């Protein structure tokens, strides 16, 4: 048992995911209270270089060919051995398609309590989780003596989890990883050819609130007038109204435009986590309680149908004049 805080580093195809730095930042905050070390746990194959800028006190690196690509089964095996042996005070996972595949399993397997959707830690070490699409926060003591936590982005800046100085790396022996029940067959690349919304400076984003495909026209004309590009949240993509390449959110693109104009987007965490790097977020939503207003710089409760057309005309005027 220790007061150390472990974070499980997430990486995909040679890139450390931003959530890893967010977790490191959180762990640094938390460690001020607990007093333990911040330990980054890196699983991979010939991936030691990824440890380079992690703001951790030390890095435990486990190398195995079976860890070259993410396999929930392999990660669970490695981590259950490591965590049950070291029993850190807290282990942080991303609330992502990698972290959620393993944290819950370890909770049952090891009997360690799990807190999910944690956004931040209070100064006295309590977890603060967001549920109900960001409309409700739940706070509580971190379960002791050991706790597992999955983290959503938004509470900490990734830069706080990066360090110019390479941390010390300790290689840890991997347990036997044979007869894995989950393995990668192949990657399917996202459809190429379309605009890369991650690189666009002006994004007009549409969500469930636009109600029908026709209203997408409103967004299109505004985007055209502003010289921007239309993107959308999950429901719009699922309806087939926009191509998958235009999806902003957890399983879509993370974007960082100058202006992110969110129309009819309520601001569920799955979406907002991917837009926090935007310079200016402007939200249009008739629901004054929509969580999107908590991250937007400007907001209006105007109705999209009334506003957007007027706005488009005014933008055209401004450009013309």
């Amino acid at each position, binding site marked *: 048992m220790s007061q150390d805080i472990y974070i499980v580093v997430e990486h995909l195809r040679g890139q450390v995911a931003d959530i890893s730095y967010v977790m490191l930042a959180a762990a640094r905050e938390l460690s001020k209270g607990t007093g333990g070390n911040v330990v980054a746990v890196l699983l991979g194959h010939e991936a030691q270089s990824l440890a380079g800028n992690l703001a951790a006190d030390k890095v435990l690196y486990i190398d195995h060919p079976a860890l070259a690509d993410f396999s929930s089964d392999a990660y669970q095996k490695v981590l259950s051995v490591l965590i049950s042996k070291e029993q850190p005070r807290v282990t942080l996972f991303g609330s992502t398609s990698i972290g959620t595949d393993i944290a819950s399993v370890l909770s049952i397997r090891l009997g360690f309590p799990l807190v999910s959707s944690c956004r931040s830690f209070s100064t006295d070490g309590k977890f603060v989780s967001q549920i109900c699409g960001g409309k409700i926060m739940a706070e509580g003591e971190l379960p002791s003596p050991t706790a597992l936590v999955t983290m959503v982005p938004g509470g900490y800046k990734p830069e706080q989890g990066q360090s110019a100085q390479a941390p010390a790396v300790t290689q840890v022996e991997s347990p036997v990883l044979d007869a894995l029940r989950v393995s990668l067959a192949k990657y399917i690349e996202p459809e190429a050819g379309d605009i890369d919304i991650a690189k666009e400076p002006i994004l007009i984003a549409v969500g469930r609130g636009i109600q*029908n*495909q*026709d209203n997408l026209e409103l967004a299109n004309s505004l985007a055209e007038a502003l010289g921007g590009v239309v993107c959308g949240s999950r429901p719009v993509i699922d309806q*087939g109204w926009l191509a998958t390449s235009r999806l902003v959110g957890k399983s879509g693109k993370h974007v960082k435009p100058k202006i992110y104009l969110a129309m009819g987007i309520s601001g569920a965490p799955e979406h907002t986590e991917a837009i926090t790097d935007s310079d200016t977020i402007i939200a249009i939503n*008739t629901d004054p309680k929509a969580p999107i207003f908590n991250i937007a710089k400007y907001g209006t409760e105007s*109705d999209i149908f*009334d506003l957007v*057309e007027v706005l488009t005309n005014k933008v055209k005027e401004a450009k013309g004049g």
Partner: protein
Amino acid sequence: MPERVDFWGIPNTWGSPAIYVYTLMFLAAIILAVRFYLRARLWWRVGRREANWDNLHVRIGRLIKYAIVQTKVLGQRYPGVMHVAMAWAFFVFFLGTGLATIDSHFYKILVGTPYLLHKLVMDSFTVVFVIGAGMAVYRRFIQRPRRLTLSSGFTWSLILVILIVLGGLLTESLRLAVEKPAWAWWSPVGWLMAKIWISTGASDSTLTAWHLGAWIAHLLIVAATLITLPVGTLLHILTGPINVFFSKLDQPTGRLAPIPTNAKGEPIYASTLRGLTWKQLLEGDACTECGRCQEACPAFAAGKPLNPKQVILAVREALRQDGMSLLVKDKEPAILVGEKIKDEELWSCTTCGACVRECPVLIEHVDAIVDMRRYLVNDGRVDAELQDALSNLGRYGNSFGQSERMRAKWTQSIQPPIKDVRKEAVEYLWFVGDYASYHSALTNITLKTAQVFQKAGVNFGILYDGERNSGNDVRRVGEEGLFELLTEKNIATMAKCEYRAIITTDPHSYNTLKNEYSANGNHQQVLHYTELLDQLITAGKLQLNTRQGIKVTYHDPCYLGRYNGVYDAPRRVIEATGCELVEMPRHRERTFCCGAGGGRIWMEEKSDNKERPAEIRVREAADLPGVSTLVTACPKDLVMFRDAVKTAGLEGKIIVKDLIELVGETLESNEVTG
């Protein structure tokens, strides 16, 4: 003394000509009857049962009105005169020939003046016929309107009837040319033609021989016409009147029948011919292909995939293809919906009822379309937006997907607060409706409605979060189960309330509350708010002293006007505000749908470059000289038209107002000036 001569000039060489004539006619009639039976039996052998024998006197009345006088046909001048001229001429020829038969075999009546009158009438109608036929030829070969089916079948029928009449005329004229009776002028056309024959200098025996030839040809053409009638386009002479006789008797389209069930209590869906009623199969055969429905249809006008005429003809075509095999074997019929009638056609219908209103033989297109939609809904074949709307309606009781607790949010600013009908008795229960309650662009108008009611001292209340969507359009989408669910909830809530009558904002709610809720023995008075305003003004409770003095036009909402006949109340209210009402070309029962009805407002509107029904309509209003305002009395119209004014680029030319806004403004200026 003038007297009719039987079989003038027909030789008796091989026995009495009467024997040949009657044998031939009898055989032709038998063939006609058998052929017609073979066709007609498919209706009841393939189609579902439906009782249509009640209220015989009303049915006979309709038969006279629509099949004989043909009031609907006459609704359009050119084709009306054209058809009626030919049809009435044939009625007269038929009666005249009948009279002649009676005269020769039973009772001598065609002697002296009656005979001369008989000749005159028959001859005059020949002229009438020639006018009609001439118009038909011109229409079919020169005008060629898009709505007509320009197939050879109709040309053939037209040739046959023209030949029959010309044959009769020719026979008569040849007889007159030989006989030269003193009363020949009583057959003016025949006699004029006879003079031509006389002028040729042909001998009497030559003319008599020609007469014999013409007579035989005339006889054979009549026989041929009778024999081919059940398989040609003239079949409508029989099926049209039959269809009129068996037509639905309640309000034209205001009350739909529930989904039928089989002996085991399982629902029957209209996916194949077997799912349609025998009457709906008859409709296929009754269609005259005149295309009036097509011309009136807003979906067709906007380039949508629907053509009501083609839907009905698809049923005919399917029965023609499959009908016989369905009789022989107990085989499953081919799929109709999705194959011969495509999903998109059915979903394009706004259920506005214009087609039903126009149909000269009273075909009920909308009922058939809704029946087929019910099958699609049951099969889960709805578009994503409609699915969202239906899911929301099921879960929240409104299509907006908002909490029922938000339904009365618009009342927050109103003082004194609106009564809750569930808690206190009122005179009027105001059924506000989804759009008026939730739509951000409409709640202001709803508020104004409440204020006008309050000013007029109306004792009213609303159901607050107890109200659910009335279900009118849910039913017309084909989601019958959801309609039942919504009505059950509304009826249960209203049953606990005390009130004298219901008022509605939305004509759609009005229709179902009035015509369909009452189907469960739940009779109550339902008023549209325009009717209430009209009553209040008449009773002096609402005084509109100032006069607006502008020119406005009024759009009749389909479900208020065409469905329920409320045309005058809103017009009287407009008059009371001091506006000058200018009618659009299409008004009252001819009103042109905004495109939102029948659940269309919840469905995807494919963005093509065609003009939408609402755009066509606002253009119609904007084209009226001097008219600045389009007034309507339906929340859905308001949403559609206001949008259409923008998309059609008519901003500044015309504005769209709800009637209540007009009244509200008049009241306000009352206060200012008074």
